[in-house]
């Protein structure tokens, strides 16, 4: 089972790297989400995949009776999923704001914060910022 999951993690990472290298901001954000899922799967795999009973102790005993599955990686993954979801929501809203404010989601064209230097040539589609003082 581990080799299979390892391959899945690898494929997911490859997808996400491809997407993150795109110029389209939405694809970059989706790439980050896929990477976060790949990392979650990695943690899950590294917590050892062994078959066992759920880590619940019967009411009458104080230790589990059989081999039980390790609950910690699942707790970690759950935390990471929740955090990742929040950050993904923020990143999507930010992308939308960038589109409405700057008017482009092509990352090469966003030159508001770093206006071009004198003599620097930008593509014609670029949305240039101005030297502001505020």
């Amino acid at each position, binding site marked *: 089972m581990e080799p299979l999951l390892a391959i899945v993690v690898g494929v997911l990472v490859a997808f996400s790297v491809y997407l993150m290298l795109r110029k389209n901001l939405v694809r970059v954000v989706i790439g980050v989400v896929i990477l976060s899922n790949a990392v979650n799967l990695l943690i899950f795999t*590294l917590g050892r995949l062994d078959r066992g009973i759920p880590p619940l102790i019967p009411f009458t005993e104080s230790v589990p009776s059989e081999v039980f599955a390790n609950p910690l*990686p699942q707790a970690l993954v759950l935390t990471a999923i929740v955090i990742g979801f929040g*950050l993904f929501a*923020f*990143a999507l809203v930010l992308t939308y*704001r960038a589109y409405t*404010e700057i008017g482009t989601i092509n990352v090469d064209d966003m030159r*508001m*914060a770093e206006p071009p230097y004198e003599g620097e040539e930008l593509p014609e589609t670029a949305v240039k910022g101005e030297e502001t*003082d505020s």
Partner: protein
Amino acid sequence: MSHILIYPLLIPILTASIALIFFKSRVFQRWINVLGSGLLLGFSAYLLYMVQSDGIQVLQPGNWEAPFGITLVADLFSALLVCVTGLKAFAISIYSLGDMDERRESFGFHPLYQILIFGVNGAFLTGDLFNLYVWFEVMLITSFVLLSLGNRKTQIDGAVKYVVINLLSSLIFLSGVGIMYGITGTLNLAAMAEALQDGENTGLVITASMMFLVSFGIKSAVFPLFFWLPASYHTPPITVTAIFGALLTKVGVYSLVRVFTLLFTQDIGYTHTILLWISVPTMVVGVLGAASQYDVRKILSFHIVSQIGYMIMGLAFFTKIALAGVIYYILHNILAKTNLFLVAGVAQKYVGSYHLSKLGGLYKNYPLLSSLFAISAISLAGLPPLTGFWAKYTVIYAGLEVQEWVVIGFALAVGLMTMFSMTKIWMGAYWSKLPDKAPVASDPGFKPVSGLHRVALLFPVMLIAAFIVGLGIYGEPFFRILFDAADQLLDPSMYIEAVLNP
């Protein structure tokens, strides 16, 4: 078991909650922010006193014994950083009274500010690797919002780059955590360090260490991973830039120092040599970038990068004096660098610009501000007797001991270049005549700041300048604490003992 450890976390989150309850009242939020930060300063100073007198403090929340629960640990290194965070939080909360505009305040600047401090203190105090990730995320999400709060176009643009690169760095960190958990079976830093002592799996551990290096390297802006910093730090209001420049990159450096002294010491010849050769281009590229800029905020942003190089260099030397130097450098940088940002903000309030071509006449008209700039700039450049000199001297002295001549040569040259940048700002903004195109001369609608606002802006700058002078001149007791802190870092058994066998 010491309950003092919980206060640096409890106070900011309570302050933020109270501020959120009174979301509509700007005045109340402002004062609760200052009050909370003041309390935080008091408690973090007490924490430092406790750690200094009673040794490493450990708290197991919920009474879950280590390594099963999440542990909070404060050794001297953490306590010093928490203490200086308290000082900065207090100073900048006062500064924000004079700088923040109504719109940003009514969108929740004050609660966000406190939650940022909450995240930073959590990262300094946690003794658990996964918990460190969670604190990083607390810090990141608030910094995202603070960066884009106000919705100016440049801010959104800067925030996009900042958000994407930081998400990536967190994910690399998280996969490093996963691998370390797979190797050692624990997430508690002390238990992990103990499990790594038997020296098995060295190859895999070093692979994981490189993931931590890349991830914390992005967060602390080392070469070649620093490009997000000068692209985004100049976009938000100067209060936000100052608190970011003071704390966020330093949390990255703190984490680097923590993992590369506690966990990854199996093959110092390999890992720390990489650190050493990262530090040199970080210093050089940072200072050269600063030399090419004419916006004061961009010059200072590039200098953050260059100063990070010195800290990484000290960590790479890995001797007692070098680590003491690293801690001194972090503290010095938090004080001097933010003070320069704050001074630049005051100058903007007087003259109306951050750009050197539109600044001038400050020395003639505002001698107090000029002297405050001079103190911070001289300290940053490393002239005696201020903090910058002792910080550089200690790190470079450590380099001479381990005979890394080339690296030391670069470090000294970069010091000279820093002096050049500071002189450039001094000549352009302070000694030169006020140019006609400066807003104060050309724009009749521009009014220089005055009255209470001016007091709120200048008081924190003077407070921090007093610390820079005081620590520089009366430095011996401080150095003793630093050497004790370096001892604790070099000998992880103290840390492990304190956490696992209280």
